[in-house]
């Protein structure tokens, strides 16, 4: 599978799952996809349908209302599919930790492969995170 993983690591199509964040991480993700950072040179592309996705970029805490939808989206994505938690929210709950409508960690809803902490993380940090994912794929 080494050959296939190499192809996969060179062509990562991301799908943006906004699971009740404060919206700041989403803005940073959009920054990442602008011409200034140009992630297309690594083969990373934003796709609109979860059926085409290789990586789900999850931002936010996944509150009671959103958590089932996030789970559904993950189930609908074709495997192999990786989940990247963007921001401190999916990692620990951040400032929404004690909120009444947060069921728990995102990890309890879907498995998360990689965390990119920061509130919000810079686009450079996200690129580094994706590079780490690629390194894992390449073995």
């Amino acid at each position, binding site marked *: 599978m080494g050959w296939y993983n190499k192809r996969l690591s060179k062509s990562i199509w991301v799908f943006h799952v906004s699971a009740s964040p404060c919206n700041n991480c989403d803005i940073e993700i959009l920054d990442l996809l602008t011409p200034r950072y140009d992630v297309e040179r690594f083969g990373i592309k934003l796709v609109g349908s979860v059926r*085409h996705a290789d990586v789900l970029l999850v931002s936010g805490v996944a509150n009671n209302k959103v958590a089932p939808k996030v789970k559904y989206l993950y189930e609908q994505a074709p495997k192999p599919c990786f989940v990247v938690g963007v921001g401190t929210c999916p990692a620990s709950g951040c400032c929404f930790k004690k909120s009444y409508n947060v069921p728990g960690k995102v990890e309890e809803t879907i498995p998360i492969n990689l965390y990119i902490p920061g509130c919000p993380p810079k686009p450079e940090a996200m690129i580094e995170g994706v590079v780490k994912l690629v390194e894992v794929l390449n073995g």
Partner: protein
Amino acid sequence: MKIDYIFYLLIFPGLLFISILGLLIGWVDRKVSARFQFRVGPPVFQNFNDFFKLLGKETILIKEGVITIFIIAPFIAFAMIVLVSSIIGISLFYSTSFGGDLIVVMYLLMINSVMIILGGSSTGNVYSSLGAGREIKLLLADELAFILICLVPIIKSGFQLQLDGIVSSQIQYGSYIGSISGFISFVIGLLCIQAKMALPPFHIPEAETEIVEGPFMEYSGTLLAFWKLNGFMLYVTFPFLLILLFWGGFNPEGPGIIWFILKYLLIVLLIIVIKNTNPRIRIDTALNFFWKYASVIALVAVVLAVFGY
């Protein structure tokens, strides 16, 4: 003779050649588009990586809807594009006819759109059916102008329908693009193939921003890989057809091959420039454009061709 045909279909102007050249030209498209936006752009083998990655992913089938059509649509479209590219390629490179004339080519080219419509509407997804509906309207819009401009080389070559007849008449009397009617129909043809390939400004069926890839939304894995490959192969088929019909075909002697490559790259570059400098238009604007202006101009070109201009 039979062995020759298998070689034609599978290797040289057929499957292998078209798919590899298509993926490479797809890279040119992405790279030039990236330079338009002051980006660096993807590496050369990006499309190959995408294609092989998609081949290895899980293919999710639909639960409701017509599953047979869902599965066979991309493969039929793929087979038809390979066939039509072989017919065009054999007339270009070997100056023989492959049992098909211009009418067959026009029908086969339409099958790709028909398959997109069938595949999109078989899924039962709202966005996919919206995209399929838009594809029907776009097909209705551009088909009339496309058929009219295909009439011009037929008339100019003395009512020949065979592709090699059109090429040899151009080699004898000069390319049709040098005449007024030929030039007009070449320009209209460029716009028509833009619509047939569903590229901006006519990417109404797959509009990523509103109906997220439209007909292809439910496709994943291998089936999606073939849809993507089909899209890239059209980057070869349509410019070859334009060169064959209006721009003198392919001359195997001397610098002919360099001229051919330059002509091909120029047409692809024009397509990319149009693609990158125009925003998407609405479906009614597209119909308006093709029926009110493009078809009328194409009709004028046909009349001019009849009078020998």
